[in-house]
């Protein structure tokens, strides 16, 4: 009987045949199956050393707690526990950290500002709000696992250290405008130096300043500066516009004045030539018969002139003292008409 026999005593009185059957079965099992079971368990134990390293992952094998090998993606074997163990690190997944804000888990369009992280002093004693986005990968799995505890929070702290010291070295205007790229690059270099120093095994692949802005309390004043700058440009442009409107018009006007003067000159000259020609022609004819022509011209003119004018005729023989009522001449408009009828 096996050691299990201890139970048998209890059942002995009940049914001997079943009891015998059982013990037969047990003997059979124990003799024929004990070894295979042991072997099977042994195989299972050894088989527990088979593990899979996924694509983009790296396995680290520990032999009695000491790192002995790095396993590449695929099917791998190590000695079973407790002799060897393995740990798997994803070395291709790009991880990210957010400084100064937290994006919502869903979507990501909405972000929540974290003021105590975002606000920082600049080198000219101003305060600026900066939001930093860091992407990183695990570069050295064994350092990542064994050299620094909690590399992720170390990275966060290091990113804050780097960001704030670089921003603290520069002025607010430089950081917000033309120096933004430069600050970003410097933060990246500084951060990587800290990550290496701290043996985190992490590599910062991207460091991006998402927001560099004035704090809420003074944002309006900063925006007003931008508006003022635009105003300056606008005023200048408007004045340029005025100039571009005025000058061509003036040039046009000047051209007009000169053309008018030229027209006057030509007109004067041509008219003079015409009149001179006319005079010369008349003179030629006049010289052929001066007296007659003179008389004729005189009378023709008088014929044209006199009908339109008031006329008083004084006879030389009448002996009347010529009295001309000069005053009434203008007043009595119709009186001379009668006189003219005489």
């Amino acid at each position, binding site marked *: 009987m096996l050691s299990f026999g201890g139970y048998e005593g209890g059942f002995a009185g009940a049914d001997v045949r079943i009891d015998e059957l059982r013990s037969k079965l047990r003997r059979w099992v124990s003799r024929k199956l004990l070894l295979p079971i042991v072997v099977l368990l042994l195989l299972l134990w050894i088989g527990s050393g088979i593990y899979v390293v996924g694509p983009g992952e790296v396995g680290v094998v520990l032999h009695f707690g000491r790192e002995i090998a790095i396993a590449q993606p695929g099917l791998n074997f190590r000695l079973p526990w407790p002799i060897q163990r393995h740990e798997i690190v994803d070395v291709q997944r790009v991880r990210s950290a957010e400084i100064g804000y937290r994006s919502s888990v869903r979507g990501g369009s909405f972000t929540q500002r974290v003021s105590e992280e975002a606000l920082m002093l600049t080198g000219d004693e101003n305060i600026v709000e900066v939001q930093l986005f860091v992407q990183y990968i695990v570069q050295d799995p064994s350092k990542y696992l064994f050299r620094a505890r909690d590399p992720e929070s170390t990275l966060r702290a290091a990113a804050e250290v780097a960001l704030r010291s670089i921003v603290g070295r520069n002025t607010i205007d430089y950081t917000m405008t033309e120096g933004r790229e430069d600050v970003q690059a410097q933060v990246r270099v500084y951060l990587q130096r800290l990550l290496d120093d701290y043996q985190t095994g992490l590599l910062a692949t991207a460091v991006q300043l998402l927001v560099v802005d004035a704090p809420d309390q003074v944002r309006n004043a900063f925006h007003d500066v931008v508006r003022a700058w635009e105003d300056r440009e606008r005023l200048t442009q408007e004045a340029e516009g005025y100039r571009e409107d*005025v*000058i061509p018009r003036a040039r046009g006007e000047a051209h007009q004045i000169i053309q008018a003067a030229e027209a006057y000159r030509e007109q004067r000259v041509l008219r003079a030539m015409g009149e001179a020609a006319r005079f010369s022609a008349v003179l030629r004819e006049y010289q052929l018969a001066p007296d007659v022509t003179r008389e004729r011209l005189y009378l023709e003119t008088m014929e044209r002139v006199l009908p339109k004018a008031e006329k008083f005729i004084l006879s030389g023989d009448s002996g009347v003292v010529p009295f001309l009522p000069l005053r009434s001449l203008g007043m009595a408009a119709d009186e001379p008409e009668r006189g003219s009828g005489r």
Partner: protein
Amino acid sequence: MRKTILPLVVFVVAIGIALVMQAAYIVNERQQAIVLQFGEHVRTVQTPGLYFKIPFIQNVFYTESRILLADGRPEEYLTLDKKRLLVDHISRWRIVDPLVYYQRLRTEEVAVARLQQVIASQLREEIARHEFITVIREEREAIMENVARASRPAIAEFGIELLDVRIKRLDLPSEVQESVFARMEAERNRIALRYRAEGEEAARQIRAQADKEREIILATAQEQAERIRGEGDARATAIYAAAYGEDPEFYAFLRRLEAYERILGDGATLVLDAESDLLRFLESTK
């Protein structure tokens, strides 16, 4: 016989396993260990692997071997020029002597508290030696170096190596912050005013310039125009003079006739002598 041997074997094997379990211990990559025998130090294990000790009599205590981060709470410090600063620092440390560490501190909380104490007092001294502006600007790293160097001996007594101290946040106390904001606003307003005034300046300059140019263009044109007119007048005069010079008397006659036609228009009143050349035949044919 088999009845009694098998349980015995099982028992012995079980005892054996238990003994081995008690005797063997694994120190992994993340750990270091000390072995104590009734509280007395036997050995320190700082490389990972499988080790053995005397079961039950000797005990193993594990500590961290990785680099650890201590993140303090922000505290106020005074600079040389008596300005207050809110500084939040982080420090990196590592247990180098697990025995001393175990004897003096035992837990990480205690260790971190001690660490912060030492660093904070060094930081206070160091910051008090610098002006506010140099703390925030150039000398941040130098100050941290000094603090770390000064703190190291005190911290080494706990079996801890201080790797470095860094300023994480360096802010102004909230009351001071308000006045900084006020100053920033004033500064921005100044810049905005300057931009607008500069715009006005440029605009006026350009407009005045344009007006001037226009006047010059027009005046030049006028001048030229007068010159041209004069030329026309001169040429006309010359032509007239040349023509009329042929017979000035006849010209005077003709020109007078023409003038009469113009002068004696409607409404003119003429008093004529009946003896005049024009009317001399009016009363007699002689």
